[in-house]
Structures are given as structure tokens and as C-alpha cells.
């Protein structure tokens, strides 16, 4: 109970001080706000270490109990300890050795994984591009216009297609994105205020 109250008081007081930094132009409030944000960035970075401990616990448990796919956990742990060991021995993520790890392992794996999404996006497009109503008709029509307007074959088919594509992106798509952004910003502000006023307390177990 006490820890709940302390946590609520901490969240509200710290949050309102940081929020005051946006509205009040005072050197002391600005310095305090900056200090609190810096501490938060340190704690947020430290949560990554805890996340790593959690991954270690889960995968060591998998290996210990011989769960399905446990040999892959060895691969994960091996890669994790190799990267960490190499990083600490060679002086951090900016060292030449770590750049090599990034270029040889991390970048190819990430880029290829995202390139794999091209195939799944095409399958999704095949499913999505079935006109069932006026709304899906708009989705398909303008999707195809933007798609063809950005590739050379579009201009070959009809030279006005890139012009129409530019208009779609600059007028209706801009209006839609702006409306969505306004809605998201209002939702974010409302949710944030609920946390700051102690109405929502997601930090309490």
C-alpha cells in the first residue's frame, strides 16, 4: 500500500515538474526539468540491462527444461555473449571490431528480414485489393495510383499518372494524415494527463 502511494506521488510530482518545464520560462525549472529527463534516460537505458537478464533467464530455463526448440536458445545466448564480450573487450559499440559485427551479422540479418516483408506485403495487397464497398474501392484506386505513379512503368502507361500521384500525396493523403495526427495527439495528451493526475496508474502492480 505504502509503495503504491509513494509510486503515485513520485509519478505525479516528477511528471508535473517536467510538464511545468514546457510552460514556465524559469532557469531553475528548466534546469530541474532537464535533470529529471536525464535521470529518466539513464533509468530507461538501464531497463535494457534488466530486459537482457530476463531474456537470459527465459532461455536458460528453456535449455534446462529441454523445451521445444531449446538448441536455438544456445545460438541466441552464444550470439549475445559473443557480442557483449567483444564489445567490452574492444572498447564499446564504436570500435572497429564491433563495426565489423554490425556489418557482417546485424545489418544483413535486419535488412533481409525487412526485405522478406516485401513478399508478405504483396500477399496482403492481393487480399486487401478486393473491392467490396465504396471505401475499399477508394483504398484500392488510390493505392494503385500511388504505387504505379512512383515506378517508371506508371509514367510509360500514362504520363499524367505521376502528376496525379503527387496530387494524391499532397492533398487528400496530407489531409488524412493531418487529421489522424490531430486525433493521435489529443489521445496522447489525454492519456498522459490521466497518468499525471493519478487517474491511471500503470506503474502499480
Amino acid at each position, binding site marked *: 500500500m505504502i509503495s503504491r502511494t509513494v509510486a503515485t506521488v513520485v509519478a505525479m510530482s*516528477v511528471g508535473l515538474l517536467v510538464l511545468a*518545464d514546457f510552460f514556465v520560462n524559469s532557469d531553475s525549472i528548466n534546469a530541474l526539468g532537464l535533470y529529471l529527463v536525464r535521470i529518466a534516460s539513464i533509468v530507461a537505458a538501464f531497463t535494457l540491462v534488466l530486459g537482457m537478464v530476463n531474456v537470459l533467464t527465459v532461455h536458460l530455463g528453456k535449455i534446462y527444461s529441454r523445451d521445444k526448440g531449446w538448441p536455438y536458445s544456445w545460438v541466441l545466448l552464444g550470439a549475445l555473449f559473443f557480442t557483449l564480450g567483444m564489445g567490452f573487450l574492444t572498447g564499446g559499440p564504436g570500435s572497429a571490431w564491433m563495426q565489423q559485427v554490425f556489418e557482417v551479422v546485424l545489418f544483413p540479418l535486419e535488412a533481409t528480414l525487412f526485405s522478406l516483408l516485401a513478399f508478405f506485403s504483396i500477399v496482403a495487397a492481393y487480399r486487401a485489393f478486393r473491392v467490396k464497398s465504396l471505401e475499399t474501392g477508394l483504398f484500392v484506386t488510390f493505392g494503385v495510383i500511388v504505387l504505379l505513379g512512383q515506378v517508371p512503368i506508371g509514367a510509360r502507361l500514362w504520363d499524367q499518372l505521376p502528376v496525379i500521384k503527387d496530387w494524391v500525396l499532397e492533398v487528400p493523403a496530407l489531409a488524412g494524415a493531418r487529421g489522424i495526427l490531430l486525433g493521435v495527439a489529443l489521445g496522447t495528451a489525454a492519456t498522459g494527463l490521466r497518468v499525471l493526475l493519478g487517474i491511471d496508474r500503470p506503474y502499480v502492480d
Partner: protein
Amino acid sequence: MSAGTLVAAILTFMVWSYLLGDNPAFRIAEHLLVGTAIGFAVLVAWFNVVQPALFGAAAPQSPVLAAVPLVLCLLLMAKVRPAWSAIGNIPVAFLLGVGAALAVGGALFGTLWPQVSATAGLSLDPADYGDPQPVLASTFFWQNLAILVGTIGTFFYFAFNIQPQGPLGGFREAFTRFWSGIGRWVIMITLGALFANTLLSRIALLIGRVQWLLDAFWPAG
């Protein structure tokens, strides 16, 4: 060809092997990616944020101020044990308090204010764009009007979905339904354009990987 290029090429094919179905080669690549990415993220967090801020040149001069993040990090470690988890709520509350304040400030001053200003600042007068044509013949007028109507419609679609009661309730409902209907159309056009852009970016990545493989194994010239 260097050993690094060969390893990168093998890893590329291991990931692509997923197109044939889930298989051990893909699983190995997947776990390798997760392990390496976590290791890299922890190294970046430690060397670029935690170490300089706690023990390096960026640490505050006052020992009390320097101790606060250290204490919060130690308290956070209590989250590892369920029995001590309540103590770990304090640093989590600190993080969420700061995060919520930044989110509110960012939403108000980083999104809401600039977007509203940009929409409200749209001039419907063609003369403001150096267009000598009369208002109704000007492209600028119609474009800006379409942006204005589209933005308001989209906003209505998200924000005003309560069933109106009392006098003029029917009129208010019809008014809201009209604007949110426009908003739904504009949202579908926007989503179509966004989907097309996402699809193209993924295809560009795929072409990039294929091009890299071609350059690595069959260099031009």
C-alpha cells in the same frame, strides 16, 4: 571475396529460406539476430548513456544529484524478484511520470499546435500564392479547401462519435455523420497511399539485398 561478405551472404540466404516454410536455417538466423541485437543494444545503452552519465564526464558534480539515478537503477533491479517487485515500482513510476509529461508536452507543442497552425494558416486567397486568377478558377483555392475539408472530416471521424442527446440532437447527429463520412473516405485514400508507399519501400529493400548479392558475387566489370 572476404570472409565477412561470405558470412553476410549465407545469413541473407538463411533468412530468405523462410519463403520455403519455417526451417532450422531460418530459426538459427532469427535467434542469431535477436542475440546480437540485444547485445548491441545493451552495449550502446551502457557505453553511450549509463556509463558517461553515472561515472563519466557527464555525471553531475554534486554527489547527491549523481546518486539519484544510481539509486533508481538499484531499485529497478528489485523487479527481477517478484517478492521485491513493489520496490521496483518507484523507478517505473518515475519513468512513466517523466514519459507522460514528455508525451503531453510533445503532443501539445510538437503535433497539435503545428498541425492546427498549418491547417488554420492555409490561405484560400490565390493572391497569397501569386496566382492572378479569380478565386474559383484557382487551383490553390480548391487544393487548400480540399485539405481543410479533409482534415476536419478525418478529425470528426475520430473525435466526435458520441450519440447526441437533447434539443437539436438529430441535427447534430446528421452534421457529425456527414463530416465523419467525408473523413472515412479521406482516411481510406490516405491508407491506400500509405500502404502503397510501405509496399514500395519493402520492395526497394528487397532489390537492395539482391543488388548487394550480385555486386558481391558478380562484380560489374
